[in-house]
């Protein structure tokens, strides 16, 4: 493991709760992650697994009234983000860490000109004149493939794909070190998806930024990421190098995910799916969260939480049955 000082981003034991209608929702339960500079991490999991919450916690933009960070630290460039003041966070948001949201349709302010929305971010963080901010914004537009004479137009005049590009331009305008992308192409159709992803990859490489890419699409992960972390019920159940995880998925859940992907060269009558449903986050089971749906489960899984087990280079997995399985291989 790397020393703390050289880590770019490290999340330790993050626990986040929501309150909804009087009940406590355990969204994130002891998540730990590391990310190096220039690397892309894919966060994979079902809807509601807690991926977005993790990202929002890094930026500290969780809804203030209904959520609470119950434990853990998030270190970014050596500083614990949880301990910074609002003012200090303002400096970081948009400049050092940026986030792209899922739905481009609603991510842009409908009554503000597109170019201005980009320039707003620039003017905030760089000490430049209005004119320079405008020029920077125009540059960004060009960079994402939008002619700069569309600066003065409004979001409703753009298609979905172009809107997402605007969002990307907005996010990258201040050259952030860390980019959080929350399902950036989910709302786009497949052809545009490929374009946007390619663009993102190029830009990130160009700026030498790090990225956490949240997605439920393993194909996207394969294209874009260096590392993968699988999230289930607010926990990381498997984490490792891309190739290692894809070649040797270890956690039963991960295997289930891969198993559910249809392959072009196979003839399948019916898709595999994982039996059962994700657990109720207000009422999580004792022991392993995946236990109720796991084909390998036994009594020890019910009572004891599994510890991470190393299964490969930079590749670990939380499963109590693993040693046994490895042994049986």
């Amino acid at each position: 493991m790397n020393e703390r000082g050289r880590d770019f981003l490290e999340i330790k034991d993050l626990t986040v709760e929501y309150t909804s209608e009087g009940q406590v929702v355990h969204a994130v339960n002891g998540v730990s992650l590391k990310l190096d500079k220039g690397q892309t991490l894919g966060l994979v999991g079902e809807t509601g697994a807690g991926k977005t919450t993790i990202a929002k916690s890094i930026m500290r933009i969780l809804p203030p009234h209904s959520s609470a960070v119950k434990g853990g630290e998030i270190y970014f460039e050596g500083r614990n983000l949880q301990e910074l003041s609002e003012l200090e966070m303002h400096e970081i948001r948009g400049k050092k860490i940026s986030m792209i949201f899922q739905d481009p349709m609603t991510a842009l302010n409908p009554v503000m000109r597109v170019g201005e929305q980009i320039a707003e971010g620039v003017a905030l963080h760089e000490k430049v004149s209005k004119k320079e901010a405008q020029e920077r914004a125009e540059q960004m537009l060009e960079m994402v493939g939008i002619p700069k004479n569309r600066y003065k137009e409004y979001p409703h005049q753009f298609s979905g794909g172009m809107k997402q590009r605007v969002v990307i331009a907005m996010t990258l305008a201040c050259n952030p070190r860390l980019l959080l992308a929350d399902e950036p192409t989910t709302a786009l159709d497949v052809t545009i998806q490929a374009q946007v992803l390619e663009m993102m990859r190029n830009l990130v490489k160009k700026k030498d930024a790090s990225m956490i890419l949240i997605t439920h699409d393993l194909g996207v992960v394969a294209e874009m990421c260096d590392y993968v972390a699988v999230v289930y019920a607010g926990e990381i159940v498997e984490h490792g190098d891309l190739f290692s995880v894809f070649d040797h998925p270890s956690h039963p859940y991960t295997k289930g995910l891969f198993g559910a992907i249809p392959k072009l060269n196979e003839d399948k009558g019916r898709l595999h799916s994982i039996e059962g449903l994700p657990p109720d986050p207000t009422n999580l089971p004792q022991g392993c969260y995946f236990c109720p749906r796991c084909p390998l489960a036994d009594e020890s899984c019910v009572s004891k939480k599994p510890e991470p087990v190393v299964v490969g280079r930079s590749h670990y997995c939380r499963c109590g049955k693993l040693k046994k399985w490895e042994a049986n291989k």
Partner: protein
Amino acid sequence: MYKYILKRLLWMIPIILAVTIVIFTIMYFVPGDIAKIILGTNASDEAYAALRERLGLNDPYFIRLLNYLKDVFLHFNFGESVVDGTSVTSALISRFPATLILAFTSILMSIAFGIPLGIVAAQHNGKWQDTTSMFIALLGISMPGFWLGLMLVLLFSLHLHWLPSTGIGTWQHWILPVITNGFGGIAATARMARSSVLEVIEADYVTTARAKGVSERNILTRHILPNSMIPVVTSLGGSFGMQMAGTIVIENLFSIPGIGQYTVNAIGSRDYYAVQGSVIMLAIVFSVVMLLVDIIYAYIDPRIKAQFEGQSKKRRVKSGVK
């Protein structure tokens, strides 16, 4: 955009025409003998008949309607009050400013106090600021205008002698009527603003802006406000129109010579021309206000502006294709 405005202005003409015909017809059929009102109960039957004849009340419906339409639309003359012969047009013009001041200041107060109150409530949803603001709003909506007005007069005029109790003349005369009139408006606007802002506060683009690092203040002014003000503007616009017609209670209480009082008195004494004139004038005011509201929309929300312009753009494209 100018084409749109022109179109709307042109549309006003048939609307006002329709309003004129409708109100004329209503007044024609309303029961009530105006001759008895003017002469009192003690006159002879011949006197009543003679007066009715002189006022032209015996002519058939269409003749009277046509004459009236001619007067109003060709000569811009609303006729003379049947009761005292004064020109309805000049009466309306002289009374218009008073009601306009009341209506206008009420809107200003709604904007100045109601919107901030609603925003504060929405930003602190569920906390004491929210509860307090909504409580104040509840008070404002529940208190009847004349009661509030009288209470203010008793306190500020009778006991403290700070302000005059009735009439117009100096700016001090306007303070109590304006507060009384505006209070209800502040309450309604606050509620409207609160619910609208609550919706917008949850929106993705607000989170995006926050993720960009935009300060809370700028998030409010550039992102939340412009998007949440559309329903508020609608309600204010409609409210202004209602105010122009409905300040009768305040006008009566504070003896302010406005249109509300004029119209209600005219209705009670079946003063046909006065009532018709008032209604037509109000219809015009309302139409203009609604047009202004739409223009404000277009200014706030470019999507709506595009909609308005698109209606004329479409035509251009169509005619371009041969």
